[in-house]
């Protein structure tokens, strides 16, 4: 926030309703949701994230791509009349009447610091950096929490068994949203374990792809030097022009 704003500007900015561009007069269906216990009437077709913004919340952290890829807006909520505490990405889940929401939470975790070249490629890498994986009670709560429908418990079990390949495969679509860790009774940070496991597998377990080797050799031979040099030397206008004229997948 700029220092130059007046106090009144700041106040009016902070209380301004950040709508989603929806003209409330056009809205036919409304639902009531509860954010931190307070009720709000919001249009029925909003996501949790847009509904919160409609209600006046300003999301600065815990919101990223808004497309269901970055994993930043993981949240928990409860549907009316349900005993289950559910979890989802706020940008991907539509509000329902009676839904109880919280401020979009963040699951604090510490990632291990390691030199991948110095690690041994067996289960002990997990014991060393995330020994708490051994506390897993196989309750499967992590799997139930995962918005990506991953078999989280299974990949944690793979970590315990030292099965990197299975871990990497099962955790491949992880978006690091942290919902698994938030719900885990054994306080394991699953997504970090998955991350470590995938890196280990990439480094030691998976075969080096032929096409990568070929391409690296081409680069070393200087086959792309002239093209790259031309780009680096181009003016801003030229770059804009090139960008606009780029070949996109959908154009092909």
């Amino acid at each position, binding site marked *: 926030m700029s220092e130059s704003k007046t106090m009144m500007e700041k106040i009016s900015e902070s209380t301004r309703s950040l709508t989603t561009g929806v003209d409330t007069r056009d809205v036919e269906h409304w639902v009531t949701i509860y954010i931190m216990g307070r009720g709000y009437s919001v249009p029925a077709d909003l996501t949790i994230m847009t509904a919160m913004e409609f209600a006046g919340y300003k999301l600065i952290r815990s919101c990223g791509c808004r497309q269901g890829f970055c994993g930043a807006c993981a949240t928990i909520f409860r549907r009316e009349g349900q005993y289950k505490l559910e979890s989802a990405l706020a940008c991907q889940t539509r509000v329902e009447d009676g839904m109880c929401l919280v401020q979009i939470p963040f699951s604090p975790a510490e990632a291990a610091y390691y030199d991948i070249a110095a690690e*041994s490629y067996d*289960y*002990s*890498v997990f*014991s*060393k950096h995330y*020994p*708490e994986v*051994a*506390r897993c009670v196989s309750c499967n709560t992590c799997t139930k929490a995962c918005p990506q429908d991953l078999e989280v418990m299974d990949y944690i079990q793979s970590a*315990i*068994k030292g099965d990197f390949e299975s871990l990497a495969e099962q955790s491949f679509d992880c978006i690091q949203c942290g919902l698994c860790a938030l719900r885990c009774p054994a306080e394991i940070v699953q997504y970090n374990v998955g991350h470590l496991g995938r890196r280990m597998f990439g480094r030691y377990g998976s075969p080096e792809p032929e096409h990568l080797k070929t391409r690296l050799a081409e680069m070393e031979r200087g086959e792309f030097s002239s093209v790259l040099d031309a780009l680096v030397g181009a003016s801003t206008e030229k770059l804009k022009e090139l960008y606009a004229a780029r070949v996109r997948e959908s154009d092909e």
Partner: protein
Amino acid sequence: MAETVVITVKSEAFLKKIVALSAEAITVCDQCGTCSGSCPMIAEMDVTPSQLMRMVQLGQSEALDTKTMWVCASCFACTVRCPRGLDVSKVAEALRQVTLRRSVDHLDIRNIPDDELAELPQIALVSAFRKLTG
């Protein structure tokens, strides 16, 4: 000077709590000492297993401060011998759980040296964490 044990209303409550957690009829312990004589970890203990049972019988919550309950290896050597059919390892577990359920770990995972973590088989870590962390 010998210490005086003060028996209060809380003593009974403590006994009841441990009885409930362990599902063992602790008051029927006959103090014969079979458990102590059977215990492989006795050298590491500050009070003998039978003494631990006595402390719980008398409702002494000081039982929670003993080293004995943490060095119990749950080997059940006492269990198969107790002439009263009691399971002292269950009582030790109940005492551990009283502490662990307050989220107070006995074993600080982060204090285990990396080289040991790397060497210990999973079976050791899983069991130790189940018994010694909450």
